[in-house]
């Protein structure tokens, strides 16, 4: 389709992808992968620890999972660098899934208190990492 458009100026609410700027290189990618590997090691270690309460373990596991998730999405999938439309599409699906299934599990009740807290927790962490609210950005 793109062949049919001559002298066509992009317009609308989004902007041209500024993809050339600050794309990470192999060095950053390997670094991210090392972090991911370390976190995975931590996760597996947590599985075996005996001295923490199970709530603490679950919280830690979810936190680590969310960080891994966000690292892959933000760096390997370039959401950190790409125009925000992609992020909005993806996050809409993600948040929708988390919230509706949270409600579904809620209606089944019984013993789901921790699970619900967990999903809420994941949502918050994800929101912070993916949304990168202004207070987290360097001035």
């Amino acid at each position, binding site marked *: *389709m*793109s*062949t*049919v458009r001559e002298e066509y100026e992009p317009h609308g*609410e989004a902007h041209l992808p500024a993809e050339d700027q600050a794309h990470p290189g192999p060095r950053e990618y390997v670094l991210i992968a090392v972090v991911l590997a370390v976190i995975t090691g931590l996760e597996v270690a947590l599985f075996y620890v005996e001295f923490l309460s199970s709530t603490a373990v679950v919280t830690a596991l979810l936190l680590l999972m969310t960080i891994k998730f966000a690292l892959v999405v933000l760096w390997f999938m370039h959401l950190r660098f790409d125009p925000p439309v992609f992020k909005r599409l993806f996050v*809409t699906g993600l948040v929708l899934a988390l919230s509706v299934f949270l409600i579904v599990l809620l209606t089944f*009740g019984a013993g789901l208190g921790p699970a619900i807290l967990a999903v809420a927790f994941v949502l918050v962490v994800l929101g912070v990492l993916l949304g990168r609210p202004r207070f987290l950005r360097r001035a």
Partner: protein
Amino acid sequence: MASVAVTRPSFFRRPRATTGLAAWLTTVDHKRIGILYGATAFVFFLLGGIEALLLRIQLAQPNGAFLDADTYNQVFTMHGLTMIFLVVMPLSSAFFNYLIPLQIGARDVAFPRLNAFSYWVFLVGGIFLYSSFFLGGAPNGGWFGYAPLSSGEGFLPGTGMTYYSIGLQIVGVASLASAVNFIVTILNERAPGMSLMRMPVFTWMTLVVSFLLLFAMPVIAIALFELGFDRLFGTLFFNPAAGGDALLWQHLFWLFGHPEVYILILPAMGIVSEVLPTFSRKPLFGYAAVVFSGIAIGFMGWGVWAHHMFTTGLGPVANTAFALSTMFIAVPTGVKIFNWLGTMWGGSIRFTSPMLFAIGFVAMFIIGGLSGVTHAIVPSDFQQQDTYYVVAHFHYVLFGGAIFGLFSGAYYWLPKVTGRVLSEGLGKLHFWLMLIGFNLTFAPMHWLGLQGMPRRYYTYPEEAGWGFWNLIETVGSFVIAASILVFMVNLVRSMSRGREAGADPWDARTLEWSIPSPPPHYNFAEIPDVRHRDELWHRKYAEDERGRPVPVVAGAEHHDEADDEEEHPDIHMPDPSYFPLLAALGLPVIGYGLIYFWPVAVVGGLITLAGLFGWSLEPVAEE
């Protein structure tokens, strides 16, 4: 995008036919695909309508013996499945396909081959579902297929519900593909100047519907997989004996099912939002409010699903929460209705057939909306659950709403498609017959329901005293059938004897009326430069000092028409392809294989895979 050299084995050379069967089988033209969608959905509409008549004949008298219980179950299930998945959704798709590129000033959709794929998948999915009638019995567990009735061994023996799980899965693939396609098309293919808030409301509603489809189809896909696996492979998802929970099905189904009702109604709302301004000769009242209430409905549609489950014992907290959210969703709907009324208020109204159907839509939809609000009240819903009151409600919104809206769109845009206007006399006859027949059929269901007549029962005893109104309903259903015949006569007659439509038969407002009817295959000889909402209107009319429209000096309008019949070798349209058809053909083969003999499923998978490989390897100019 630079094209690759085309000297490749002939297998990958793209087909060139522009006429005849091969052209239609390989077409990627959104207008042709729209016509295919419309024609196919209309055939299914006739089938679903015949099923409805069978049901009504059976219920016309107490102790009816026209259909036996099992046949009745199959017929009412297929009636529901057909009307929802094979009629209203694809008819809406027909309008999306034909109109969206025209309304946003594009030459085609973003992914023309994916578009063809959607259509073929829908077609084969529909045929697959209907083939079950000849292969041991159609689905017979209701359109919502409640588990474990639908999943458990021995509850509904035979392959009917297996066809249901696979058939809807196939049709769902089509919806998902077209959702992606239209989201990208509407965001990306807009002509210069066509900002989001200049888009026609129909385009907006298509965008909202596409998002609803995008997020709702995967949920029903999983529900159907779990149901199908329970039936085919002995999984235990919905098996209470093994701890499985029947409510899981209901949650997954209605998580899809409630967005689905907005998927069905929003396109009709979009159509009406185009028709009412045109025939009131006024811009849409409160454009932004109509758009945002459409978006709000799309969002809130995700928070009301459990109102289908009030009687399942969710508990008072959940029931109250969902009752409240359900009442809230009436607010954006009400906003739309008042905006439509505001559009007509003080306008110079022309009561043409499209306008009549649009007004009929508004009136009938209000009735259906109000009875819907009564279901939101939990104690009231306890009384109404599974009675004909519910049947009355959803026919007022889906027939009185969606179908009236779609017929409004048909009378309005068919002149663009065929180049000829439908007869006004027959159109009005159609409208009044349908309105009267519709109300005769469905209004009495309200009181029969409140008297306690249950849904889905194949007969009822004489002592219940429901005979009179049931007879009236049956009469009404035949009046509807007559009105559809009038429409068919009108359509066929208009093809040969209809008045030539010209580019703009209605003095309309949006871009699709700026090009000839039927449009050339490239749509716009020159991509329009959009300066206004209701672009065409502003090209035709200026405003005098009192805000009344004054025609712009003759000659300034419709200059595009001069390009009619001209060849434009510089315009490159996407090439046809037979791979979407091939990829689609594999899916029902997989389905039959799963039911009867699994190696066949492997063959089906290979067919689809071959189609997809050919698709990605054939030379592309357009991607």
